[in-house]
């Protein structure tokens, strides 16, 4: 089975994701601001923040071990590598196989694991609290994600995202069945959890009552924090791309026109999902930590029903 996406295209797509990632965050922030009747910062504000961070010096906690320094490097690498596994502008399996949905989830989990370990390194209560909560939510999210992936993979017989996308084809909007709706619903429930947003997490504050992800980054500073921030942006766009690859991919089309069409479609899809996130963030309150399992339970039931519909 020779794939449709040459290695060069895969790498280009990956770089594209990294480059566009902060923009998505910026867009969501801007939309949130507008929804809250604020002016808000520009959509390119995350780029400015990153640029500033990479120029700054670092303040490192005196208790940290040698691992702490390298954590941002590894987290960023793992997250970006996950970006290489999602089809962005063209469906179909890659020419040389890299990884599938399971690998993608694995790489994201690796990044999360390393972040949590880094958070514990400084020996402060905030990092520990953030790590503990993050590692509580993550195991609950992962099975549901896996079931969502399976709900589409069972039909296609593969977990390779490009192949999944190709299997769904260009006319996906005609072929959607009840199972797909439910699976998509489950995915929408999971999205805030996976991207660290309300109602599961609040990316805007460092208050100890709310923080999960941000708490873990507290002791990072300068370029290290820049790497972690970039990783967060990338992770967000990779998750959104995963949703689009699973549920509304664009089919394989050759030539430059096809690529352009794919890029355009990608932009639209991400924008739609970003708008969804912004809407949710603006209209819901942050849940208590121990309400989160219940919230995820909704996703679990949706995913299970989707699977049941697919298999029975």
């Amino acid at each position, binding site marked *: 089975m020779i794939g449709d996406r040459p290695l060069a295209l895969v790498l280009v797509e990956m770089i594209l994701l990294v480059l566009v990632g902060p923009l998505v965050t910026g867009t969501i922030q801007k939309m949130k601001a507008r929804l809250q009747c604020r002016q808000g910062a520009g959509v390119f504000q995350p780029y400015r923040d990153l640029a500033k961070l990479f120029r700054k010096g670092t*303040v*490192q906690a005196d208790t940290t071990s040698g691992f702490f320094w390298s954590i941002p490097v590894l987290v960023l690498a793992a997250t970006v590598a996950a970006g290489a596994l999602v089809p962005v502008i063209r469906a179909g399996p890659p020419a040389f196989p890299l990884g599938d949905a399971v690998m993608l989830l*694995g790489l994201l989990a690796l990044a999360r694991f390393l972040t949590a370990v880094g958070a514990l390194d400084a020996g402060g209560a905030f990092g520990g609290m953030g790590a503990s909560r993050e590692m509580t939510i993550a195991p609950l999210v992962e099975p549901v994600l896996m079931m969502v992936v399976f709900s589409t993979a069972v039909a296609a017989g593969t977990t390779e995202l490009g192949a999944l996308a190709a299997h769904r084809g260009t006319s996906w909007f005609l072929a959607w069945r009840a199972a797909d709706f439910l699976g998509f619903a489950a995915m929408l429930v999971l999205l805030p959890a996976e991207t660290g947003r309300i109602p599961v997490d609040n990316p805007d504050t460092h208050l100890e009552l709310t923080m999960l992800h941000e708490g873990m980054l507290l002791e990072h500073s300068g*370029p290290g924090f820049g790497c972690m921030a970039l990783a967060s942006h990338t992770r967000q766009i990779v998750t959104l791309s995963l949703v689009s690859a699973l549920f509304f991919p664009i089919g394989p089309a050759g030539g430059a026109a096809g690529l352009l069409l794919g890029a355009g479609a990608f932009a639209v899809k991400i924008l739609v999902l970003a708008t969804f996130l912004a809407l949710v963030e603006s209209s819901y309150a942050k849940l208590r930590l121990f309400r989160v399992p219940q919230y995820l339970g909704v996703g679990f039931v949706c995913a299970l029903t989707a699977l049941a519909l697919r298999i029975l």
Partner: protein
Amino acid sequence: MESGPGVIAACYGAGALLSLLLARWSGRLALVVSHLAAAAGAAAGLALSLGLLLGEPGRTLIRPLPNFFPFAKLSLLIDGLSAYFLLVVSVVAVAAAIYGPAYLRAHSPDAGSTRQAAQGFALNVFLGCMAFLCCAGDALTFLFCWEGMTLASYVLVVSDDRDGENARAGLLYMVMAHGGTALLLVAFLALTERAGAFDFAALRAAAAGLDGPTRTTLFFLALGGFATKAGVVPLHVWLPRAHPAAPSHVSALMSGVMLKVAIYGLLRFTFDLLAPVAGPLPFSWGWTVLFVGTTSAVLGVLYALQQHDLKRLLAFHSVENIGIILIGVGLAMILWRQSTGGALATVALTAALLHTVNHAAFKGLLFLGAGSVLSRTHLRNIEELGGLARRMPWTAGLFLLGAVAISALPPLNGFVSEWLTFQALLGGATRFHGPAGLVIVFSAAMLALTGGLAAACFAKAFGVTFLGRPRTSQAEHATEAPPSMIAGMLWLGALCVALGVAPGYAMRLLDAPTAALLHGPGASAVVTARGPLVLSTALTPSGTNGTAISMTMVAALLIALSAIALLLRRGVRRAPQRVAPTWTCGMTPTARFDYTATAFAKPLRLVFAALYHPRREVTRETAGTPYVVGRIHYAGEIVDLAETHIYHRVEREISALSQLIRARSTGRIYGYIGFVLAALFVALLLLGVAY
């Protein structure tokens, strides 16, 4: 290769004997020599198994043994499956043998020479029994090695006794193991008595004539026996007590290898001996195994999460990983069809077998790492550790490596086997419609949950043990482990990396066992059909579509990206670096600011409260008035459901009943006479007349 088994036996035998002999002069010498012999035996095992696995396919080494017992012909039979498990045994044995002497010296410097002799002796017997268990060609050799393995590990568990706790752990272990052996005895003897001989070929022939219900009964007997040894929930209660009690390198062997030997037994008994000649395995077998595997995986990791004893935590993770292996085995049983060969069954079995060696590698590594910490601090409670990464960087790094591997995170080996398991589950889900398919998918979800929880658990274990500030003076004054211990860990760490980054090359080793058991294509024909760099599975019935990944490419990508990220991390310009205390809202940070393991695991403890039945007890010492609190004592514990609801109850009932019966006996002689008379009377009535 012909002399391989002899060499292995000679090495272990010499190690055992020399340990006893040399201990009269010097316990340390005995320890070193016995471990060296064990290393030699393990190396011989490695050579023999690799030779067989990489040699001509389908080769089987059969060696008759001396006629120890007149009623049974004993023999060794080393085929692909045997060789593979011999490989697993030997791989960890090498590390343990290198690691052992320095560990024992550091951990218990005051040990007398008797204890050292016993430890050296038992270690060699333990390893020898495991090696020859895998190579057994008849039921009697199998059972003897099985029990020898148990006994030797029991000796090792109780050898390190301080407060009687180990003796209790050992007792529970032996009793459970004995119960399991009783089941195995029945299962094997039912075949041997039918066959009139003990060798596996005869058993196979005898099993061919069994009817369905008997066959299934025997399977469940054997499953019970092997599951007890493998520590499957709810038969696991001995495991988290016994494994931590042993010296750490023995814990590594018990958790990493001994449990796998049970898996070997299950595979051998089910696929090789008991499987019906034609047609699939009975419906109930595979589903049961899948179910108990899933349960073990989830409950194992959940209980592990709440442990604060480092070795106990690792032991519970063995329960989890055995569960994952059994998921693969169960799937293989479900999917195997003699007629279609079942490429998918091959994937499932490959996943199980690969996870076997993977778990051996990373669990061995983790136990050795825990042993390094233990030998330096004499502490097993991770709440009392902390900050060791700065003091023991090698140990910490290798432990982290093992933690990543066991959490099934790419690019290490744990991920590879879990990926294969997922693929097999997906394939199963595509084949079985209806509830069966849903069960399989549910199993996949549980597997994902397991992986996530394992990551949480090891973030806790690694973070609290090695990071932050030391919480006790022992932790503060810890120093790095000696080189020989590091070397033992490095060997296993390298294996974790190699099996993770280039698993395709290991698939050849799996060819022989998978082909031998399933009579189908070997592992490499299915999984690495697209070359060793790519792992692929053909999952749709037509075999066209499939999933492919390349661990090697991903690893390369990760390295390249890390290099780029490293540049970013250094910053655009050389900005100043400053060291400052951790931010604690303006207070002076001390070790008490560190997040404890209890606190770390608390959210999950509350989420899964239904399974834990957590209990907590908080007492306040107040200074006169309730508003001034002097001290707060907090004690919390969780309850192992199986332990309290099954084992404690059974134990209580049995001992209460025994006490009652014993108290009933009066010691009056007329009672004695009455019983004799009654016995005669009843016997005459029942047996004399009724006949």
